[in-house]
C-alpha cells in the first residue's frame, strides 16, 4: 500500500475497478483521481504517480486524464470550492452579480482562496440547473439553485461554520 492511497481509499477505488472488465483497470482512472483528490483537495505529481501505480497504468496516461477534465484541481485550493455557474442561462439571470457578491462576502477574487484556506471561488460552466438560475455548486456536488444575496450569505456562513449538510 502506498502512503498516498490508504486502505479506505483503496477500497473505494476497488469498487470502481470492479465495475469494469478485469483487464480494463484503466477505466477506473477518472474515479481514482477523484477519490485521491477528495482526500488531498488537489492533485500533485505524486498523487498521479500513486494512481498510476495502483491501477498499473502508465503515469503519462493518468496525467493526460488529469489535465483534460475540469473537476481536477491542479493547483492548491481551499478545503471547499464554491463555483458560480456563468453559462448563458445563469448570465441572463445575473450570474455576474452573484459572483461579485460572493467575491465581496469572501473578500477574494474569483480564482483565489480565502486566507484561512477554507474556500476557493471559481466559475463553473452550465451545471444543468438552468431553469433555476442563477445557480452555484459547492464541492462539485451540492447544488444551490435560485440563489439570492441572503441565500449566498447563509451558504457561505454555513461553510465557514463547518456545519454544511
Amino acid at each position, binding site marked *: 500500500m502506498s502512503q498516498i492511497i490508504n486502505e479506505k481509499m483503496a477500497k473505494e477505488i476497488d469498487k*470502481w475497478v470492479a465495475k469494469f472488465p478485469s483487464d480494463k483497470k484503466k477505466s477506473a482512472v477518472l474515479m481514482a483521481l477523484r477519490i485521491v483528490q477528495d482526500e488531498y483537495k488537489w492533485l500533485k505529481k505524486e498523487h498521479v504517480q500513486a494512481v498510476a501505480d495502483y491501477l498499473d497504468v502508465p503515469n503519462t496516461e493518468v496525467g493526460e486524464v488529469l489535465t483534460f477534465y475540469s*473537476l481536477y484541481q491542479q493547483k492548491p485550493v481551499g478545503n471547499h470550492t464554491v463555483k458560480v455557474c456563468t453559462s448563458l442561462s445563469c448570465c441572463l439571470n445575473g*450570474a455576474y452579480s452573484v459572483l461579485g457578491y460572493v467575491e465581496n462576502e469572501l473578500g477574494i477574487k474569483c480564482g483565489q482562496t480565502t486566507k484561512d484556506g477554507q474556500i476557493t471561488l471559481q466559475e463553473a460552466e452550465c451545471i444543468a440547473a*438552468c431553469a433555476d438560475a442563477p445557480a452555484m455548486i459547492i464541492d*462539485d456536488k451540492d447544488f444551490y439553485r435560485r440563489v439570492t444575496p441572503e441565500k449566498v450569505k447563509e451558504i457561505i456562513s454555513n461553510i465557514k461554520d463547518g456545519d454544511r449538510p
Partner: protein
Amino acid sequence: MNSLNQVCLRNTDTDQSWTLEAYESIGGYSAWRKILKEKTDPNLIIEQIKKSGLRGRGGAGFATGLKWSFVDRDNPTQKYLVCNSDEGEPGTCKDTLILTLNPHQLIEGIAICAYVMGATKAYNYLRGEFILHYKRCEAAIKEATEKNLLGADCLGSGVDIEIFNVLGAGSYIVGEETAMLESLEGKRGMPRYKPPFPAMHGLYGKPTTINNTETLASVPVILEKGADWFAELGTERSGGTKIFCISGHVNKPGVFEVPLGTPFKDLLEMAGGIRQGRKLKAVIPGGTSMKLINANDSLDMKMDYSDIASKGSALGSGGVIIMDDSTCMVQALCHMMRFYEEESCGQCTPCREGSGWVYGILKDMLAGKAKPGDVDELYRVAKNIEGRTICAFGEAISWPVTSFVDLFREEFEFIVANNGKSMVESKLPGANHLAFGWPAYEQRDKL
C-alpha cells in the same frame, strides 16, 4: 394542463418517487416483466419503437428504433449499452430530473434496450457533479437487483443484465458519444473518427449502442401504453413528448414535459411569459449549440423536430433559452463562445483555432478594440469550422455565431463602430453584462 408530464416525468409529484415501491405502484417494470416472461422477440420491440416515432433526445434526434437495429444481436461477442447522462449542453436541465426523481424508469429502459441489443452489460455515465443522482441510481439498481429484475438469470428467464453507474470528471465534450466511450476507457474525452461506428466498434472495441437518458426512460412507457398511444401524443414526424427546459428571461422558468408539436407560445405561457412585461427578442430552442431564432419566427413555431427545423434551427436537447429586448446579442454570444473555447478538446485544428479566434474577436468587440471588417471576419472564421471537424462540436460553434450575426448584424456593426458601446445598452440602462442580476430575480420570485 393534463397533457403535462406523461412519460419520463409521469411520477415526479408522487412521494419518494425514486423508490421501487413508488415506481411499481404506477405500473413500473410491467413492460420488463412481460418481456422476461414472454421472451419477446427483440425485433418486435424494435418495430414498436420505430412505430412510436421516438427520436434521440440527446441532441441529434436520430430515430431510436433504427439505431437499435444497427447492432448485430447474433454476434457472439460482448456487446454494450451506454446511457448518456452527461447532461452538459448549456440551457439543458432535464436528465437531472429523470435521474433524481425517476431512476427506476431509466433503469427499466436500459434493461429493455440492453435485452434488445443482446448486451449483458450497460453503463450509465453521469456527469461528475451528479452525486445525488448517482446515489439514487445506485439505490435503484440495488433494489431492482434484489428483486432479480436485474442481475443473472432475471426472473428465471435466462437473461443476464448488469448495469453500472459511472461518473465523469467535468467535460462537456464527453457528452459526444464517442468521446464518452473514450472516457469510459479511462482516457481523455476525444471524439473518435466515424466510421467505424460504435454499433460495430464501440466500448473496448465491442458493438455498442449509446442513447440519451430521456430516450431510454421513454421506452418503458411506450411498451406499456403502446406505440400508437405514444406516436399520437406528438406530430407526424415527432412522436411522443419532449421535456423542454425554459430558462432565461421568463417569469417562471421551469421544466415541462409536453407533447411534441406544442406551440412555442403555450410553452412561453407555462413559463409565465417574458419577465417584467418586456418584449421577446430571440430564442435558442435546443441548447446553446443550436441556431438562434428571432421573436417573430418563434411566435408561430411548433415545438417539434420538423417545425423548428423549418425555422432554420433544431430541437436539439430541448434547452429553450429566452432572451428579452434588454439582451445585448454581442455579449450573449461572447459568453457562449467562452464556453466553447474552454471546452474544445483541441483535436481538430479548425475547432481548436477557430474557437479561440471567434472568442477573441468577440472579446475585442466588447472591449472596443475591434477593427472595421471584424464582423465579416467573425462570420468567416465561424463558417469555416462547419463540417470540418470530427464531431458536431464544430457546428456548435459555427451555428450560433452565424445565426446571431445573420439576425442581429446591426448590433455587431454598431459595437465595432462605437468602440465597444452596445446598441442595446444605449437604449436600455443596465443591460450591460446581461445582468439585471438580483433585482430581476427578486421580482421574479415574488410571482
